[in-house]
């Protein structure tokens, strides 16, 4: 009961009413903080789980894509220089949106397609089928990468507010346990 947290007050009935109102306000504030910290924790755990799943999947998809590159090279020969030289506009683009979780805004990335495939006729005389498969595999890999980037960029965005709100809640519960 003793300690630095003692509030100096003149013992009157009005002071008691005021103190009770203050106590109620502090308790509501503490509960809201707890709710915020819980919501953030929940979202945090969901994102963490999704990141792990996506990373596992990423390993498989990249392996598949690299192998389809080897297959395409076997049939079509070396088309790497042709591809690199004919690069102009990107076909897959990203939009950044904002998502709100318990007052914290998180960035979310979403991919969309634009424009036609400028490599439609590459491999026309040799290896076209393998090249089509290669394009599909790498497109899948890119989509997965965008999802992973979205998850990983929201991770620190969540982490800091979560720590702050849980610290505040802890401090609040400390104070209220004394008072």
């Amino acid at each position, binding site marked *: 009961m003793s300690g630095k947290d003692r509030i100096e007050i003149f013992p009157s009935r009005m002071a008691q009413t005021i103190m009770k109102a203050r106590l109620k306000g502090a308790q509501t504030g503490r509960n809201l903080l707890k709710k915020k910290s819980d919501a953030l924790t929940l979202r945090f755990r969901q994102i963490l789980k999704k990141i792990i799943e996506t990373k596992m999947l990423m390993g498989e998809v990249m392996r598949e894509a690299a192998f389809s590159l080897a297959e395409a*090279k076997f049939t079509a020969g070396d088309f790497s220089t042709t591809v690199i030289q004919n690069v102009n506009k990107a076909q897959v683009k990203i939009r950044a949106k904002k998502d709100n979780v318990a007052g914290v805004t998180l960035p979310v990335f979403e991919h969309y397609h634009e424009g036609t495939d400028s490599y439609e006729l590459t491999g026309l005389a040799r290896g076209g089928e393998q090249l089509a498969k290669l394009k599909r595999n790498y497109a899948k890999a890119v989509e997965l990468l965008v999802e992973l980037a979205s998850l990983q960029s929201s991770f620190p965005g969540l982490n800091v507010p979560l720590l702050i709100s849980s610290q505040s809640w802890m401090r609040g519960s400390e104070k209220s346990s004394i008072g």
Partner: protein
Amino acid sequence: MLEGAEFYFNVDHGYLEGLVRGCKASLLTQQDYINLVQCETLEDVKIHLQTTDYGNFLANETNPLTVSKIDTEMRKKLCREFEYFRNHSLEPLSTFFTYMTCSYMIDNVILLMNGALQKKSVKEILVKCHPLGRFTEMEAVNIAETPSDLFNAVLVETPLAPFFQDCMSENTLDELNIELLRNKLYKSYLEAFYKFCKNHGDVTAEIMCPILEFEADRRAFIITLNSFGTELSKDDRETLYPTCGKLYPEGLRLLAQAEDFDQMRRVAEHYGVYKPLFEAVGDGSGGKTLEDVFYEHEVQMNVLAFNRQFHYGVFYAYAKLKEQEMRNIVWIAECISQRHRTKINSYIPIL
């Protein structure tokens, strides 16, 4: 037949034919491939290749060994052999060799044109060019601004000039899609090569003409297959078909109208050579693709070319078989280095 190549062939070309047959004998056999497939790392592959005719070709490579290093060294070896043959050849074998290198030259020219138009440095592109397709005017490419300039200044001196003239007039060179240009050049090249072999007559024509006819028809089939679902119109497609094959003229007309794989298969069924090939194609995943089946048939024809003597086809066949062997080794090496061994046996066996 009083054409009798056996009377005078050896005077000019006997030494080279003996040499190429010796080189052919050193191609990797089935046993070599079995050994390679069982390797665990690229170092094992290098050790196994040392016991074959490749010898210590990777001896000067620093660690770590990569698949692209193996590929570059093998290609250098093939080029050395090819240049040796070419430097010691006499007419008309030298013209034959020039025709053989034209296909690589076409690829190089397309690369250079593309790079020059995008103002890329010529040095970078020269490194990527195929060594067999080298020609003297290569470095002069960057002086041109547009494709027509390029043609007038540089390409008109190369052996590729007549192929450009066949395709189009100079004005249309500017707007043409680079892939369409590549395929049109290849079509004129193939027809010119076929005419050369046919005019030469004798055993060379008997061996080379079926091989080139198959190449022409194979291109027609593959172009048709790959153009389903793209923006390539049927008329455009028809202009890309080489006319020196068995499919000309009715088959090509039917192919130009085809809209899916089954219609293509029906066209192929009219021709005795292609019917069994299409029947060997598996459906979708798992089975062989049409391209695999064509590769196998090409390899068979090239191996059979060595059964006859006194013709130039042995040089063509050797170069193609060696390239297939390089592709096989690179495939096996990639499967090993990516630890993806399920399809490691999908190389094309040669001998």
